[in-house]
């Protein structure tokens, strides 16, 4: 199918968007990336220890309070620090390189960064001191020290500044380039910023009106159903916030790195718009097993959830077609010959291939989570842990690595000393993730539940799980090795000779000239998001005020180390 485009003579490329001499945001981007990867390395150490603690083997320092402290820190570091700071840093890079002009609001970016740093330190100290062992989900009545929540609010405030900068940079560019199509990488980054603003409304309302007043002792009661509902508003879309950079890399980086072109720029725009539309009104699928919502609204949100698979399926097709173009341009023949012809030594191409494999398994599992009948089989079991580790820890994070590898030379002015070590790191991450999560899927189906510090392996049912947990532990250790390799690769010690590089994004087979306003901005889509959110969450939230349920007493969990 895709070969038709490849066999045609390709249109003459438009002038490639190029960065000026030296990036103005170089230090800003690097600061974000290093904070993200430092948090990532710590979280990998904790994650491997957690697998050890859950296994039949004796882990050091294995106590319940250490375990839940560790899980909280692992979750916060991976889900809030690695993701948010990586996305912000990458966003600044895209704004400067894809638009081909220096960042206008660089100073605001630094403000966002330092506010976020203060927040991270506050939250991290709260968790390390043992006063916030509540996991990274905000589910009162259990309530941590206010420092934890206020710290995380600051991280969100920092990210809001980023959103403002991204939206502003795009509108400045549009003003200066009337009628031109916003480059796809920037269009997608702004789509993510707009989505993130919508996404954070739920958790911000929960924290500001429910959780922080409770943790400060101002209120003694909480409407638990409402807080779960507000958190669910954020809980699914946040995953797509994390996912966006991976998709931006699929569309705007991988095709060129593989030596080809993007099959369809329009499809890219549509996919990002569909993510904006359908990742928000679906959060209730995290509450399928909850008593506070009716089956009718759960069904409605399940239908909307089904449509969030559409942009992913479109992406898989478009990117496969783009890679096919690359493979055929490199001389690949036959039905699958182009796959072998791809430059698998290129880190971005390799990471894209590995990410697709993990996406296949993770996405398949997601379809089961989504089915509101089958969800009962796996809810809060290791299956779910396996699912989001494959999708976020696997597909998304391996693309974070690939992005870092792709833009590192243009940021640092040096090439990698060993591309072989870069490839090893990617392969180890893939292998470790598969080895860790495949047993989790099986154990989840057998009913192994999440979030426990220790299993009683003398129980006959649980005893049969032991060997599989050890396999997962081995996977976790492989991941840890890969994480250390990543840091080695990125540090000056892992870099080689000097280079002057300007990052270039992939061009489309048919570069966009003028595009409809709907594919070049977000006005229409914001209105439709509002309609969808009103339909999906309007009554489910209003019901807590129209017919208030009994509230529960706050349980303070701010015990120090004993």
């Amino acid at each position, binding site marked *: 199918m895709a070969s038709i485009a490849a066999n045609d003579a390709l249109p003459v490329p438009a002038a490639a968007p190029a960065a000026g001499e030296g990036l103005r945001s170089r230090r800003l981007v690097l600061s974000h990336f290093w904070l993200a990867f430092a948090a990532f390395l710590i979280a990998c150490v904790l994650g491997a220890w957690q697998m050890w603690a859950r296994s039949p083997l004796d882990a050091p320092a294995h106590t319940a309070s250490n375990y839940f402290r560790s899980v909280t820190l692992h979750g916060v570091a991976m889900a809030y620090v690695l993701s948010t700071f990586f996305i912000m840093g990458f966003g600044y890079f895209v704004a400067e390189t894809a638009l081909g002009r220096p960042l206008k609001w660089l100073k605001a970016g630094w403000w966002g960064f330092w506010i976020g740093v203060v927040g991270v330190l506050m939250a991290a100290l709260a968790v390390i001191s043992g006063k916030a062992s509540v996991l990274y989900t905000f*589910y009162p*009545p259990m309530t941590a020290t206010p420092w934890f929540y206020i710290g995380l609010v600051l991280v969100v405030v920092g990210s809001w500044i980023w959103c403002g900068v991204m939206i502003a940079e795009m509108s400045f560019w549009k003003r200066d380039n009337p009628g031109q199509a916003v480059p796809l990488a920037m269009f997608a980054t702004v789509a993510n910023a707009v989505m993130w603003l919508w996404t954070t409304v739920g958790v911000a309302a929960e924290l500001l009106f429910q959780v922080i007043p409770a943790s400060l002792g101002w209120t003694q009661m909480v409407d638990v159903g409402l807080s779960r509902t507000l958190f669910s508003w954020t809980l699914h879309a946040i995953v797509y916030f994390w996912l966006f950079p991976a998709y931006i890399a699929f569309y705007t980086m991988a095709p060129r790195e593989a030596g080809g072109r993007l099959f369809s720029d329009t499809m890219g725009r549509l996919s990002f718009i569909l993510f904006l539309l359908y990742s928000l009104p679906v959060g209730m699928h995290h509450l399928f097993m909850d008593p506070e919502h009716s089956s009718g609204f759960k069904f409605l949100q399940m239908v909307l959830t089904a449509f969030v698979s559409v942009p992913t399926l479109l992406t898989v097709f478009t990117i496969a077609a783009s890679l096919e173009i690359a493979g055929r341009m490199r001389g690949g023949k036959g039905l699958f010959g182009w796959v072998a012809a791809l430059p698998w030594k290129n880190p971005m191409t390799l990471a894209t291939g590995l990410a697709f494999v993990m996406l296949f398994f993770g996405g398949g599992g997601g379809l089961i989570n989504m089915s*509101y009948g089958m969800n009962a089989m796996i809810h809060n079991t290791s299956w779910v842990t396996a699912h989001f580790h494959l999708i976020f820890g696997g597909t998304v994070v391996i693309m974070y690595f690939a992005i870092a590898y792709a833009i590192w030379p243009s940021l640092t002015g040096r090439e990698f000393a060993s591309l072989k070590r870069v490839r090893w790191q990617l392969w180890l991450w893939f292998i470790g993730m598969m080895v860790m999560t495949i047993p989790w899927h099986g154990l989840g189906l*057998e009913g192994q539940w999440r979030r426990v510090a220790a299993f009683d392996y003398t129980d006959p049912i649980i005893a049969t799980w032991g060997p599989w947990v050890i396999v997962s532990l081995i996977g976790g250790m492989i991941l840890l090795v890969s994480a250390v390799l990543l840091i080695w690769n990125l540090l000056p010690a892992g870099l080689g000779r000097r280079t002057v590089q300007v990052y270039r994004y992939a061009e489309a087979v*048919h570069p966009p000239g003028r595009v409809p306003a709907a594919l070049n901005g977000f006005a229409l889509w914001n209105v439709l998001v509002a309609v969808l959110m009103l339909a999906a969450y309007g009554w489910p939230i209003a019901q807590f005020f129209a017919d208030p*349920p009994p509230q*529960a007493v706050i349980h303070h969990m701010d015990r120090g180390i004993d």
Partner: protein
Amino acid sequence: MIDHGATERRILKTELRWAVFVGFLVLMILGAIVYAGISMHINPPSNREFIDPKTLHLSGEFTEANLGTSVDTDGQVTTRVIATQFSFVPQCVVVPANRTVTLRFASPDVIHGILVSGTNVNTMVVPGYVSQVHTEFTRTGDLLMPCHEYCGFGHSQMLATVRVVPPEQFRPGPDGKVTCG
């Protein structure tokens, strides 16, 4: 000069064909779920029944002496369980095999959750609500019922047993209750 329009149209047509296929796939999945809902009455536990967690133990259905399995006046088997920090009350419940059982849960303190290993029984237990699961156990024996939502430092030790007995061994006492002991 290449006809850009023609290339673009051809690409869009290919993409459109794929999009139709994707739409078909999504509808197939949704169709299967609707079919299960109609033919097997499958719904997620969505009771929306309020109960005050603060006074749960003072009166009514979830007082201590009323917990466990009982056969109601209309012959329906109902099992009532409290999930609290850090235990289930009672710690063992008996249910009959091959008969519809209604499991009802409530929490007086924080959020808990339960699953019964090897079955589709799964629900969150949210303070403020009665969580209700209708099910039919098919295999006899002792099943694990752990708390699957983090509820505090004793969470890992929060476990109960569901004892599924053959229908002929399920004999309610004069008060309609059946216990493990």
